[in-house]
């Protein structure tokens, strides 16, 4: 998925927080790239490091509390080295973010219009009137009826889906080149979810922006992403095109994720298979592969590697598909075909 000039390039990103209980390794050596017009889906459970990664790209971590190393190149500039002032020019203009719960992410005391105008005015020296015109235009674009009237209403006067549309209008008001959507449909009804995803895709086509879609919902990924990055315990465990990762997954964790999703084509009586155990503590990760205590296929004992060595993310035979797993590729492919694939996978 690496391209010659991807708009965003993250290289070996590490983010650590010092807490009283110890150092939290929230992100531990993650690399990926997204080019304009493409969508990267980042999947993982809570605590896998996906949201921390996205906040790093926005430069929203408190630099005193979060130790960040590696590189985050936005249009070639490493934002980890940018002073706060320069970073503010990137935020909201070149890179913008859509948050999970629009009710809590919008300020309850200001009208929708005011909040969009504010987002526009930070980056444009234009009159309030012009910004308001732009805000109404954006509200109209995201499908809010009577945008001029709705602009003067407060977030609590909007329905959940309309609020998320307004949030999207606010994020896109400056035509950002990269949009980070952090679980944008999780707080919404299923029917509204589909509308919001369609809207995002539409807008992406129109503005040719890059999208990072953070979610735990593989259905969302297969619907809108071009590439996928599966994260576990702060590391990338599998990455590749949606086609290859969803159809021919090679990491036992990805198998687990896929098996825990109901399938439209599968047998209705079939049970969903949850992944046993809990996500690991990021302060005290299991030794070796962080997934080994929950992995059915882990090779343990007698000097076998799963709890001894951290597996590297290595390219498999299929182009653009990498997996971090000690199991031999042949065995992974076979195991998936025999044990997992028949159980039906969300596509």
């Amino acid at each position, binding site marked *: 998925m690496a391209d010659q000039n991807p708009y965003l390039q993250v290289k070996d990103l590490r983010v650590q927080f010092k807490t009283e209980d110890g150092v939290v390794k929230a992100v531990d050596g993650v690399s990926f790239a997204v080019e304009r017009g493409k969508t990267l889906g980042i999947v993982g459970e809570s605590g896998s490091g996906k949201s921390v990664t996205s906040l790093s790209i*926005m430069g*929203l971590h408190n630099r005193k509390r979060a130790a960040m190393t590696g590189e985050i190149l936005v249009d070639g500039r490493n934002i980890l080295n940018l002073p706060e002032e320069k970073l*503010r*020019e*990137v*935020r*909201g*203009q070149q890179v*913008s*973010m859509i*948050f999970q*719960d629009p009710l*809590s*992410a*919008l*300020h*309850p*005391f200001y009208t929708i219009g005011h909040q969009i105008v*504010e*987002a526009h005015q*930070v*980056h444009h020296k234009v009159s309030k009137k012009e910004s308001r015109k732009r805000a109404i235009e954006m509200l109209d674009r995201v499908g809010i009826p009577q945008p001029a009237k709705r602009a003067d209403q*407060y977030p*609590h006067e909007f329905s959940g889906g309309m609020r998320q549309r307004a949030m999207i209008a*606010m994020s896109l008001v400056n035509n950002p080149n990269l949009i980070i959507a952090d679980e944008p449909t999780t707080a919404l009804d299923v029917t509204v979810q589909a509308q919001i995803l369609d809207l995002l895709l539409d807008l992406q086509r129109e503005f040719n922006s890059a999208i990072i879609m953070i979610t735990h919902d593989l259905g969302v990924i297969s619907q809108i992403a071009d590439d996928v990055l599966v994260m576990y315990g702060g590391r990338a465990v599998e990455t590749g095109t949606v086609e290859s990762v969803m159809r021919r997954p090679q990491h036992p964790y990805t198998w687990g994720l896929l098996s825990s999703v109901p399938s439209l084509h599968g047998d209705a009586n079939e049970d969903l298979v949850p992944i046993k155990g809990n996500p690991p503590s990021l302060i005290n990760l299991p030794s070796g592969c962080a997934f080994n205590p929950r992995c059915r296929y882990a090779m343990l004992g007698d000097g076998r590697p799963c709890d001894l060595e951290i597996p590297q993310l290595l390219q498999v035979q299929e182009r653009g598909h990498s997996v971090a797993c000690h199991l031999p590729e042949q065995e992974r492919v076979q195991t998936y075909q025999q044990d997992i694939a028949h159980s039906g996978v969300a596509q």
Partner: protein
Amino acid sequence: MLRYLIKRSLIAVITLLMISITTFWLFFAGSANPAAQMCGAKACDAAKIERINKSLGLKDPIHEQYGRFMSGIFTGREIGEGADAIKCPAPCLGVSFRTSEPVLDIIERGLPVSASIAVGSAVISVLLGVSLGIASALKRGGWLDKFSIGFALTGASLQIFFLGLLLQMVLVYQLKIWDRPRYVPPSEDFLGWLSGMSLPWVTLGVLSAATYARFARAEMLEILSEDFVRTARAKGLTPRAVNIKHALRASLSSIVTIFGLQLGGLLGGAAITETTFDMPGIGKLAVKAVGDDNLPIVMATVLLAAFFVVLFNVIVDAMYAVIDPRVKLS
């Protein structure tokens, strides 16, 4: 809005009625003996006490006395009998058992004093406390934050009668660098009013600022972790805009709440502060009236204090609707 105000006013009237009944009843349920207090230690015999009781109707059933008191508010009344009778025009809250002066006149004299103390110290405490609280929340863990926490703890532990007396003793009497606390009406001598009120203001203001600081800090810390503050930062706003326009604006309603309730409480008389600084306000009046079994003044000061508390509760509720668009008065 109008319906809301009518409803709240009705509730306020009922509250005040209940308080007046309770106060009246409590006064007689205790060992109060106003007649003995009035007749003085010397030359007081049973006949004289009897005469006082009779002339003021103090031995009548409580509900009759209460009825007379209440009707006096609307129609005015004559207190005492024969040539000694005192005319007390409506709204009559009775006359002082001690000086026979209408209670309303006494209250009118005390109210500006209490109001001066209340407003001045409330302004100092809210400005000092809120800015300290916000600054320490923004620089969490820094020296200012540590100072602010220490200040809040000290302020909450110190009592006004201790700090007030100490400051008076040191600053006013020993070092002679501060004016003696006294009340002059601001209309007569504005500078004199300022200098005379300054010590009570500073003492009460700084002590209550501790409460604000603690409160504002906790509130700000909570709001700074809200999603909409993160959104504001994600828009690329300056830290100043994020902190003031987004975070402080959101914490305003709780700050206004304590401000309103504190001011309402103080307007009814800051009993300890006024006693400590010997200021002739409502609070000191109330303390003295209780010691003197001076029922009309006790009633008036209790009702006045209750009135301000009720009034400011309504004002605070109405302020919510102004501050927070989600709140609708109904």
